[in-house]
């Protein structure tokens, strides 16, 4: 059992599906907490007229990104919405007038220096589009005196099953992705760029290689298709061999990792000035009759997206935002689309026959060690589970539970179907408790 990373069933059904623009919904609800970090406060009132790209939420906190209106229309309500994690968040409801009038603020930013570039990225409302949603300007804005960056990695690994939104970005907006990377390299004076793609996407690798054939400083790497290849620390190690240790970010090792879609968006913002108001996402899952890639405005109710993909909403049993390995369940189909959602997966209820129950029954740990081989961080999930069950805080700290990134590889490979990843999350919270 000496393998690094795990083999998973890719199920990339939509790899060949051209992105379709989703029709505008009647109303959008735009959450004020789109990214990791501080939530924004709404800057509009009920009855205000808003235009596409107009800023409707802002905050002065450094770790945050502003929120923009994704449609033109009228603000009909300011409310609160309960997030899946139990917190609540402000939400602005806008009735769409279907004219999609551009806000006068939308114009290409003037960028001549590093500071102007970072300010522009902040104003664009950009965050990591791969799923975690770290505000991009914070990631790019590391102090070059303290952490000299020598490599930019464009992350096109997309290691989760089903999701093909980054794959489509690399095919449909290949030049944009490269131009975005070049802009980042230029303003942040990064000498080298590596475009890292899993080798299960040969067409994307081929296209990127063609377009960067004349570029000296951009190389394209085909990485092994092993989950979780796309995790920031893992891809940093795969591409450069540098190990990002406990408490460190890739920047400590001179590396910035950006998602390919993020790079593509930065390019389009620099050219048009249109902030992050729409995104591409994969719609799939066994409840969806026509799996597809759609481009939808932020704030679109999820049920509109599902209906567009010929999914009968009454048969949906579980609805995931993100991939099946790390995605988060939503409890409500009218939940609005957020910036970080790279996929929407709808599942029907499984038939609970004998075979299903047999296959999903949790049994005793047989100490096979598969979770240990699978863990990309080199942890001992089975030992962590035992330590958590005994509420042994000292041992949990010694076994470095804080390093778990919740990739779910341990649960995926466990032959006894134990919920190791979930236990790790509980253990992480338990360790932080007083």
């Amino acid at each position: 059992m000496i393998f690094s990373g795990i083999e998973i069933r890719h199920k990339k059904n939509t790899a060949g599906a051209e992105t379709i623009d989703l029709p505008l919904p009647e109303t959008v609800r735009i959450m004020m907490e789109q990214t990791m970090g501080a939530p924004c406060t709404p800057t509009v009132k009920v009855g205000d007229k808003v235009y596409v790209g107009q800023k409707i939420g802002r905050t002065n906190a450094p770790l945050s990104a502003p929120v923009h209106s994704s449609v033109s229309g009228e603000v009909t309500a300011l409310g609160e919405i309960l997030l899946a994690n139990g917190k609540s968040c402000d939400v602005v409801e806008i009735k769409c007038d279907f004219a999609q009038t551009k806000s006068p603020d939308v114009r290409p930013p003037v960028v001549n220096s590093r500071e102007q570039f970072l300010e522009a990225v902040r104003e664009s409302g950009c965050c990591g589009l791969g799923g975690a949603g770290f505000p991009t300007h914070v990631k790019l804005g590391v102090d070059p005196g303290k952490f000299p960056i020598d490599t930019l990695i464009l992350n096109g690994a997309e290691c989760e099953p089903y999701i093909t939104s980054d794959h489509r970005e690399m095919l449909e907006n290949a030049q944009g992705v490269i131009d975005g990377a070049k802009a980042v390299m230029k303003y942040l004076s990064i000498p080298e760029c590596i475009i890292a793609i899993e080798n299960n996407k040969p067409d994307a690798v081929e296209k990127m290689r063609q377009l960067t054939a004349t570029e000296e400083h951009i190389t394209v790497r085909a990485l092994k298709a092993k989950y979780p290849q796309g995790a920031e620390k893992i891809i940093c190690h795969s591409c450069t061999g540098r190990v990002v240790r406990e408490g460190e970010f890739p920047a400590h090792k001179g590396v910035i990792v950006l998602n390919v879609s993020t790079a593509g968006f930065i390019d389009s913002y620099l050219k048009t000035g249109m902030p992050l108001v729409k995104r591409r996402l994969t719609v799939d899952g066994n409840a969806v009759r026509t799996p597809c890639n759609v481009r939808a405005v932020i704030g679109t109710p999820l049920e509109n997206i599902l209906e567009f993909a010929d999914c009968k909403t009454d048969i949906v049993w579980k609805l995931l935002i993100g991939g099946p390995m790390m995605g988060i369940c939503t409890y409500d189909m009218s939940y609005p689309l957020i910036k970080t959602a790279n996929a929407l997966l709808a599942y029907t209820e499984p038939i609970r026959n004998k075979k299903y129950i047999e296959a999903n029954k949790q049994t005793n740990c047989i100490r096979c060690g598969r979770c240990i081989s699978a863990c990309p961080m080199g942890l001992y999930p089975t030992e962590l589970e035992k330590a958590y069950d005994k509420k042994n805080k000292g041992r949990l700290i010694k076994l470095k539970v804080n390093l778990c990134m919740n990739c779910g590889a341990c649960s995926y490979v466990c032959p006894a179907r134990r919920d190791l990843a979930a236990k790790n999350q509980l253990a992480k919270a338990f360790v932080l408790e007083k």
Partner: protein
Amino acid sequence: MENLTVTASPHERGNVSTAKIMTDVIIALIPALLAAGVVFGGKALMLTGFCMICAMGLERLCNLVMKRESSVGDLSAAVTGMLLAFNLPVTISYWQAFLGVFVAIVVVKQLFGGLGHNFANPAIVGRIVLMLSFPAAMTNWAIPFFDPKSIETGATPLVTKAESYQSLFLGNVGGCIGEVSKAALLLGALYLIARQVIDPAAPLMFIATVFCFSHIAGYDGLYQILSGGLFLGAFFMATDYVTTPINTLGKLIFGFGCGIITCVIRFYASYPEGVSFSILIMNVVTPLIDMLTIRVTPLAKKTIKEEA
């Protein structure tokens, strides 16, 4: 519209299950079983089947008495029965075999909490109890290709030291049912390694240690590793998940310890064979090895290599 199910990630699971792992082990043991059928005749197959059925029956009975969910489906009892049968001479009577199965399944496995909670390999303990209780019956080795009407028995090659390497490797020697054909056992072991069911660290270390120790002690190393139950023990019992260390360093220590103890018993103690005792002793030491070897070296050990 509401009432959607909310669960923790990950939302999909892999295909591997305990039952599938055990099925792989059974498949890997089949070549050795066929070899035993050829060498010792139908009684070997009958005895193996008898032990497997008894093991599963006793497992189910224990589940019922202890009010636990049925665990026959995970096939671990079948594997235990099969391994125990492989460790018996073909001449043993059925009631003695049943006693061994009883010790293995009821005493060692179920009384300690079932699969995953047993401290020692059930089949090993079953064999050792039989060996201490019925020393004569347990060392009554039938010579290969015997006539069922008048069974001739002889000493194990560990005592005679007069078999050719070829006979030892192919299985034309006396011994327990499953241990005679090293070729068949090796075939099964390669299957398990290829399927990533077992980690070759412990068995290779075990065999290498026996080989080296024998040389140092002035014995024929190759003869020592090819005779007795070393291959069976190393590949199928020193790799039992539950009772061996969990990481590679621990497995290496385990294999080394097994090798040393096996040789000490073979060369300097009164028993001709020491594989089962060595594995039992190392089973007991396993928690200690785990305690000493589980060290988290975050992120330092993993390399996902790029492909051209």
